[in-house]
């Protein structure tokens, strides 16, 4: 197994870290030197202090929990629905032809455009967040699954046919593993999009979570706290992406893109 190229060069990691430190330093210096007003951009040290206060606040952890609940629940619903619909539509040519234009019409509708609808239906509860998250994440998964189903190798298909594999065996042992790399990409994209929509819903609609806490901090002039919460949201996105990539590598250990050089 060859590790990814970026990990083989310790220099690259050091350079990345230096860039991050540079950013933190810039944010520290800009308001202190008066180039930017500290009212809008507090120095790093103050943001970090606000962050420490947040981490000791139980309300913060509750908000984080709410955001993660909306994210995880929405993502789970979207993935299950996307995979089931994708396998069904993708393996029945009639359904595929019948739904193609509808999917192309519905998919580009930005999830945020559904905010008024979500409020009408669910008010400011978890339901609103879920509607937006599921809508945004569902298409990511569905479209990838549809591509994946189409990608069955002709020789693999002939092999399955020549050995009389039944419908279930073909779905389970041929179609699903073939589509899995696509499914994983879809899930990874959906996981990121789901977080964006979860926080957007909380921020705009005011359903409980990190987003509404950011909004509250902003309206009460607690600017360092607001930045601290934004940093948390960013870190959350980073962690989610890392976790998704790890799951992807584990699940696709057999795939060309992951397995690297053959071991003899």
């Amino acid at each position, binding site marked *: 197994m060859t590790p990814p190229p970026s990990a083989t060069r310790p220099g690259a990691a050091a350079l990345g870290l230096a860039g991050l430190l540079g950013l933190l330093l810039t944010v520290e210096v800009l308001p202190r030197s008066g180039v930017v007003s500290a009212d809008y951009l507090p120095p790093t040290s103050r943001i970090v202090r606000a962050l420490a206060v947040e981490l000791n606040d139980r309300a913060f952890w509750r908000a984080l929990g709410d955001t993660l609940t909306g994210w995880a629940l929405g993502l789970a619903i979207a993935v299950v629905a996307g995979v089931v619909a994708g396998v069904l539509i993708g393996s029945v040519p009639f359904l595929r032809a019948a739904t193609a234009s509808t999917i192309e019409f519905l998919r580009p509708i930005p999830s945020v455009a559904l905010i008024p609808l979500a409020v009408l239906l669910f008010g400011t509860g978890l339901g609103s967040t879920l509607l937006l998250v599921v809508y945004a994440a569902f298409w990511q998964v569905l479209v990838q699954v549809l591509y994946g189903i189409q990608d069955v190798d002709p*020789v693999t298909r002939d092999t399955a046919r020549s050995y009389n594999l039944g419908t279930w065996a073909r779905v389970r042992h041929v179609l699903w*593993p073939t589509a899995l790399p696509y499914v994983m990409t879809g899930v990874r994209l959906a996981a990121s999009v789901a977080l964006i929509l979860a926080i957007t819903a909380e921020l705009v609609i005011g359903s409980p979570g990190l987003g509404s806490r950011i909004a509250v901090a902003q309206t009460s002039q607690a600017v360092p706290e607001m930045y601290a919460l934004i940093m948390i949201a960013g870190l959350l996105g980073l962690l989610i992406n890392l976790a998704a990539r790890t799951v992807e590598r584990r699940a696709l250990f057999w795939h060309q893109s992951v397995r690297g050089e053959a071991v003899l």
Partner: protein
Amino acid sequence: MLDVRGLRKIYGGHGREVEALRDLTFTLDPGELVCLVGPSGCGKTTLLKCVAGLLAPTSGEVLLDGSPVTGPRPGMAVVFQEYSRSLFPWMRVRDNVELPLRQKKSLGRQRRHALVEDALEAVGLTASAGAYPWQLSGGMQQRVAIARALAYEPEVLLMDEPFAAVDAQTRAGLEDLVRKLWQERGMTILFVTHDIDEAVYLGQRVLTLSASPTVVQDELKITLPHERDQLESRADARFAELRTHVYAQIRAAGTRPAPTA
């Protein structure tokens, strides 16, 4: 055993028709090892797919034990040229071999496992049962594909240029493996190849195909001794005669337009 009668295949579509196979008729007796050799692009793979029931012929028919082949049949197994695409990389060697057997509901779990072990032993891969196909060399991967076909216990084994993608030494070993398995198990084998030497070395009979649109150009009984050896058999004067004969037929087939039906 296996009867191919008046097989014809025309590929249509896009306003253009291509006649791949014109008129093929031949028979394999039970337990026979027949090699089909022909110039590249003569429709060997098309023919094999029609015989395997993977492709419907335009006209003519394929009979297995007297009954027409209209789709893949449990009595036949195919070994494809592209072993790396034919084996499932997400399954261990053992599971690859076992998967087709799971479709045969009459087989119990124990019988299934016994068949898998036996097939892997026959191709000398018992030690690699737990590996993934992509961890093996090309020749070993093709052995896995052969083991999968063996475990399926077919009456007829169809092999589509199975050794075209492996190096010469591996190929020699695999050829001897096919001869050995054929002698031990007595199944009927149709072996398609573009390699004249391979066809003469392996077969009891060699059918030479013409260029496309394809007909059977020539049929030759291989009069080499039953026991073959990579060094002795190939050095045999008769081997040279036979391969020269096949070569001449292929050259004739390539230059002369095939007789119209």
